[in-house]
């Protein structure tokens, strides 16, 4: 067991974790933040995307011990209670989600993208979402939502 301390959605958490505990399960099972999902075993699908120190990372390919001292934002922490972050609002308005399983990952990847590239073209959006897979939407409305977000953020 290792002791770690990290900030998640603005709250500090200390815990003893087994080294093999993945960040995603720490978030989901210790902290009850089940909005971050697991979609694959191979770092291919991006469903587990969270922000670590403001940047998108796959929380399934990160040990909780590696995030020690870090600042994590999950989908639950993006906006205040009852509020939607502009990216969430854009996903809603553009019907950029169907089953919703990949959605938190896409939203977090988008937040990270817009921080690095505030005015992406469609081609840049599509390239920047290369690490997130969606099986429902065909990405058409996701791209529109990112464009709307870029205009709003």
């Amino acid at each position: 067991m290792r002791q770690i301390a990290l900030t998640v959605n603005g709250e500090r958490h200390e815990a003893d974790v087994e080294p093999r505990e993945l960040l995603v399960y720490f978030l989901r099972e210790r902290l009850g933040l089940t909005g971050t999902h697991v979609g694959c075993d191979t770092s291919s699908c991006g469903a587990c995307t969270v922000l670590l120190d403001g940047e998108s990372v796959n929380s399934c390919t990160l040990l909780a011990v590696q995030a020690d001292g870090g600042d994590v934002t999950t989908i639950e922490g993006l906006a205040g209670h009852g509020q939607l972050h502009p990216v969430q609002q854009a996903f809603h308005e553009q019907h950029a989600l169907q089953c919703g399983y990949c959605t938190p990952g896409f939203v977090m990847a988008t937040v990270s993208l817009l921080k690095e590239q505030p005015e992406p073209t469609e081609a840049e959006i599509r390239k920047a979402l290369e690490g997130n897979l969606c099986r429902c939407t065909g990405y058409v409305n996701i791209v529109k939502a990112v464009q709307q977000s870029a205009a709003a953020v």
Partner: protein
Amino acid sequence: MIPAPFDYERAGSVDEAIELLGSREEAKLLAGGHSLLPLMKLRFSRPSLLVDIGRVDELSGVSDAGDRLAIGAGTRHHDLNNDPLVQEHCPIVSWTAGLIGDPQVRHRGTIGGSIAHGDPASDLPAVLVALDAELVIRGPDGERTMPAVDFCSGVFDVALGPQDVLTEVRVPKLGPDVGWSYLKLARRAQDWAMVAVAALVTRSNGMIGEARIALTNMGPVPMRAPAAEQRLAGAPRDAGSDTEYALSEAAAVADQGTDPPGDVTASPEFRRELARVVTKRALEEALSR
């Protein structure tokens, strides 16, 4: 999936990492974890101890070392992609770093981790081979340097002893007379290269002075394409039919001496064809910038 149990230590310095690696059989270094952790989750890799060098400050960052850039092995692909020094002096490296995996992977994965994994489908190793880059390795017996071309000896097999740490990658600054290209063919944007080609072309008096070509995923290790390089030296470079002829001649032998793998995405035979086609295009692109 959950990795099999292991112990974990965080190293504060390279020397501490070397010491920790020596403390246990089957100890492994953990940097960004994007090569290692997926294998551990699938339980294909079962280290007894992970030595985390993710916070070793001396390993990260890029510095100007005269005619070279010194890139810390712990520098993340994302930072390499956006580093102004690298963009200015060795743009083939920053460009290539932006092609690795996807943004999430680039936010964690490091140049050192990518090289040390020894995957012949990785992008940066071929680029470093084309650049004649130098790798700095520190072990229990001190520090040594090694040309990038000698680092990989086989698939997932590199010149690192059990206690060695790759600490730095030294790449030459490219002058204005050097055109470059790294062209990658992959099935999907996030995928490993089916084949990729790094090309560096030195322009000299309307001629091609020197061409350096290295191939990704055309054998167990990244490799140069000497036959193609030889045909280019001294060739005209001004986009006329003579240049076109020289490039075609060179590209036609780009696969000589390679030993490409076959997998679901491409057979060895098709990889050879791709190597020839992509070499031609990479050379054209290199000559145009």
